[in-house]
């Protein structure tokens, strides 16, 4: 009856296999982790793809004015009656309305808080100067640069990657631990000779391999389809992803350390993640928030992760130059992990 160990293999590999199967047999999880970020990157990449420099639509109240303004190729001037022009301006069809004054001057009506309005104003002013026969006082010519790495998609992909690392790291560990606790499976496991550290390690191992696939899928897609740059060596990006993922997993462990129900876990997860979705610069730069908020925003783990990913991918900065950001991520990892171990309940 008695037989030796080895039939079933080591318990660590068995526990890790359980983690893989839990993931791959849950189609929704596979979708959210692998497919969703790619779809999002594709959608946003297409919506915000770079077009030739915009031609701004403006209005002019006389033929003469319109003709003068058309000499500027960045403007498309249309002749409108004043009332029509006012309406077009209000509804955003044109960025600027040029009205002639009886004195012979021109009045520019535009919204100076709107970048298009300001651009149109500058171009219109320049066009009128040229129309009056004045030459450039200093000879000049244009030399155009279209840099990859400065497009919206380039900004977006590291943000999506950061968001994905957060979601899969926190949910990946948090959800299944709370679920196992709720089902009293954790209690059953600790009644067996299972090593508790191996249970935790199985999450770590499955997370690491999943991380590899997850990052490779999103980055591969972004590089091949959108030509998003990858300026730092791959191992540096891998190191940033690894540290980030561990940090979010520790945070997930902390959130899951005592919660008894899935509902409570979801609430707590969203409470932790929501501020980061908003403030941490996934879709737009975190620097747009007021200065007063910046210390808080910069201390969030996802902000540090996104900054590190952008610095590595887009600027190609070596790791020692983003030491501050990495230190923030590591601090979150250590603090969350040790508090989680203190608080953790198996039942």
């Amino acid at each position, binding site marked *: 009856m008695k037989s030796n160990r080895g039939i*079933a293999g080591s318990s660590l590999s068995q526990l890790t296999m359980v983690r893989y*199967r839990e993931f791959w*047999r*849950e189609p929704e999880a596979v979708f959210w982790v692998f497919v969703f970020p790619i779809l999002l990157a594709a959608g946003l990449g297409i919506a915000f793809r770079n077009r030739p420099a915009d031609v701004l639509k403006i209005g002019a109240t006389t033929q003469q004015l319109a003709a003068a303004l058309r000499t500027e190729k960045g403007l498309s001037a249309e002749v409108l009656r004043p009332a029509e022009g006012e309406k077009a301006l209000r509804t955003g069809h044109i960025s600027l309305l040029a009205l002639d004054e009886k004195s012979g001057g021109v009045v520019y009506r535009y919204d100076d808080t709107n970048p298009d309005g300001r651009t149109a104003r500058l171009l219109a002013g320049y066009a009128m100067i040229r129309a009056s026969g004045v030459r450039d006082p200093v000879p000049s010519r244009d030399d155009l640069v279209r840099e990859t790495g400065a497009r919206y998609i380039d900004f977006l992909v590291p943000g999506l990657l950061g968001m994905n690392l957060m979601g899969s790291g926190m949910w990946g560990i948090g959800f299944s631990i709370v679920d196992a606790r709720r089902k*009293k499976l954790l209690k*059953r496991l600790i*009644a067996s000779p299972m090593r508790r550290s191996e249970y935790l390690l199985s999450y770590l191992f499955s997370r690491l391999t999943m991380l590899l696939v997850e990052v490779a899928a999103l980055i591969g897609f972004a590089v091949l389809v959108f030509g998003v740059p990858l300026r730092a060596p791959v191992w540096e990006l891998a190191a940033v992803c690894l540290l980030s993922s561990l940090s979010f997993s520790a945070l997930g462990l902390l959130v899951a350390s005592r919660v008894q129900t899935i509902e409570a876990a979801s609430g707590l997860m969203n409470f932790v993640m929501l501020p980061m979705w908003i403030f941490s610069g996934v879709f737009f730069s975190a620097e747009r928030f007021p200065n007063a908020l910046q210390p808080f925003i910069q201390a969030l783990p996802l902000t540090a992760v996104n900054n590190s990913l952008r610095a590595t991918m887009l600027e190609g900065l070596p790791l020692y130059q983003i030491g501050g950001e990495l230190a923030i991520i590591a601090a979150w990892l250590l603090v969350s992990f040790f508090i989680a171990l203190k608080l953790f309940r198996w039942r």
Partner: protein
Amino acid sequence: MGETSRPALCVRGLRKVYEDVVAVDGIDLDVYRGECFGLLGPNGAGKTTTIEICEGLLSPNAGSLEILGLTWAHDAAELRQRLGVQLQETQLAEKQTVAETIRLFRSFYRTGPSPDEVIAMVQLEEKRNARVGKLSGGQRQRLAMACALVGDPDLLFLDEPTTGLDPQARRQLWDLIQRFKTAGRTIILTTHYMDEAEKLSDRVAIMDHGKIIALGTPRELVASIGVDHVVEFASEGAAGLIDLAALERLDGVKRARSEDGVLQLQVTQLHTAVPALLAELARRGAPLSELRTHSATLEDVFVTLTGRHLREE
């Protein structure tokens, strides 16, 4: 090994107090090697708390506990290797198959049968590759049993193994447990089904309010109330006509009690008590609408000791 002569489980003065309830109130227990020991009692009697203390999942507030000559304080790792545990209400991971679940649990133990052998032991061969989520209640319970058996345990704990199962699944599980018994395993089982305790246990401890109120073989316990049979009858519209004292005076009747319009007599001699009862009813002109008799059971023991039933809602 000198330890074979000692009880498999030896509990003295065990006490567990939760915030406002005394769950286990100073119990002593000895469970011998090779026996199947039943802890019988209603829900909330403290059975699960007792068994979870023995399994090392809870720590007692007072008392001593020795299992297989070992203690949780000194030999926790060794004990976990040698105990087989089936908890009340564990839901195993639904997305794993039967074989995967058993392989996982098998990997925790130094020795034991192969996963296939265990699957055969609990008769789940046909479900070997089925996901846990697709199993019936009885099959899940057998899988839980398999997880308790993979380490070839010296002592097997079964906490309410058949609660919530249909009669057929219960009987199947009883057959399994009976086979473990004949294989010479030591089993400790909790239940609130008196028939389960009676059928499976060599000895039974009846628990109520955290205390052991009776202990012995099922036969000894039944004999202790000095009653062989129980007669239950109902008499239409006559409940008021018959007083319990009069019934207790009947020949061969030891105790009488009334419950929901049914009168219950604990009798020592069925052959004298029933004719005496019929004569008494005829004399009072009370027509008999129901009459049942059964041999005294552990349920009757519990009722006699506590005045309540095991399964009071």
